[in-house]
């Protein structure tokens, strides 16, 4: 099938392709500018139930419940959202629930808002302390391969995998003074 080049090089489309390939049926998210295209793709996908969360912590419960019912789920969040999940992540380790988290990074490369920096700079360490394997993605060309491998590792091994989409990849948030 012919696919336009502009689609092939879009990293949110690559992630959505991997969600479909690995059979992810539920996607929980707190809206985020970096994830806006991916959220749109998931919302428009009739095979995916999109669940808008009031806090990222809710998504951890969603993933566990989906797994109990035999469905795979993924979470989309900003780096600040990782901090909102810490205690609830215990559920994943206590029961061995597979979990795929796509984290858009703030508080690093080109960040305009210093209030994002404290959480952004500890996000990866926090995820590791919570039992996640973490993979950082800096280049658009790497997105599909890493997300593909990350999803397979999570669901084949009941592991918790976080993929960090760097601020350099996403582009710094545009801010009008």
């Amino acid at each position, binding site marked *: 099938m012919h696919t336009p080049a502009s689609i092939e090089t879009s990293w949110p489309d690559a992630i959505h392709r991997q969600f479909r390939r690995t059979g992810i049926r539920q996607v929980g998210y707190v809206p985020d500018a970096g994830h806006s295209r991916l959220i749109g793709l998931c919302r428009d996908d009739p095979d995916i139930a999109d669940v808008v969360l009031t806090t990222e912590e*809710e998504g*951890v419960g969603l993933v566990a419940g*989906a*797994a*109990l*019912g035999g469905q795979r789920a993924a979470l989309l969040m900003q780096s600040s959202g990782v901090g909102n999940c810490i205690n609830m992540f215990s*559920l994943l380790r206590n029961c061995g629930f597979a979990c795929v988290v796509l984290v858009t990074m703030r508080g690093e490369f080109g960040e305009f808002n210093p209030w994002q920096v404290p959480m952004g700079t500890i996000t990866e360490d926090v995820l590791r302390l919570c039992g996640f394997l973490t993979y950082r993605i800096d280049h658009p060309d790497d997105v599909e391969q890493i997300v593909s491998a990350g999803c397979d590792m999570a669901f084949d091994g009941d592991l918790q995998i976080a993929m960090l989409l760097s601020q350099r990849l996403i582009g710094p948030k545009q801010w009008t003074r």
Partner: protein
Amino acid sequence: MLDRREFVKHLLRDRGDLLVIPGLGSATYDVAAAGDHPLNFYLWGAMGGTAMIALGLALARPDRRVVAIPGDGDMLMGIGSLATIGVKQPANLAIVVLDNARYGETGMQESATAQGIDLVAVALACRFAHARAISRIEEAADVRALLHDAKGPILIDARIAAEDTPRVLPLRDGHAIKHRFIAALNTA
């Protein structure tokens, strides 16, 4: 006021295909006391997450009825999940809050519901299809019927007496609870 053990026992009588997610603490002990069952996903932690686990399950299995049974402290900690559930409108999901207006595990300190914070009003504001409070055991049969037949999402605020009950401890190994649940769901 309801006796919590008697109420939960009534609620889960002839449970059929019901999938049950009790919240940590006394709710898990109450559900265990009503009779161990492989389709109970006992929680020993994850405070605030009980309703969301039930939502993920309800979305994954629209062919089955799902009931979350959190305490009031658990529900208050996850109160935002009522909005999340209201958006998705799962027809097969009910939440029965065991509301003693206390944090029973930590010394019976008062919760927000002791000051009139109204979970039923919150659920209705969050577009729940049905929400009501009950405080008499004669109402348990009605609630049980709702769990099995009524269009969700449903929230029942079950006003229970603030009494210490003996602990009835079910499985505590999270992996074992999960695998047992999944195996039972896939063979049922």
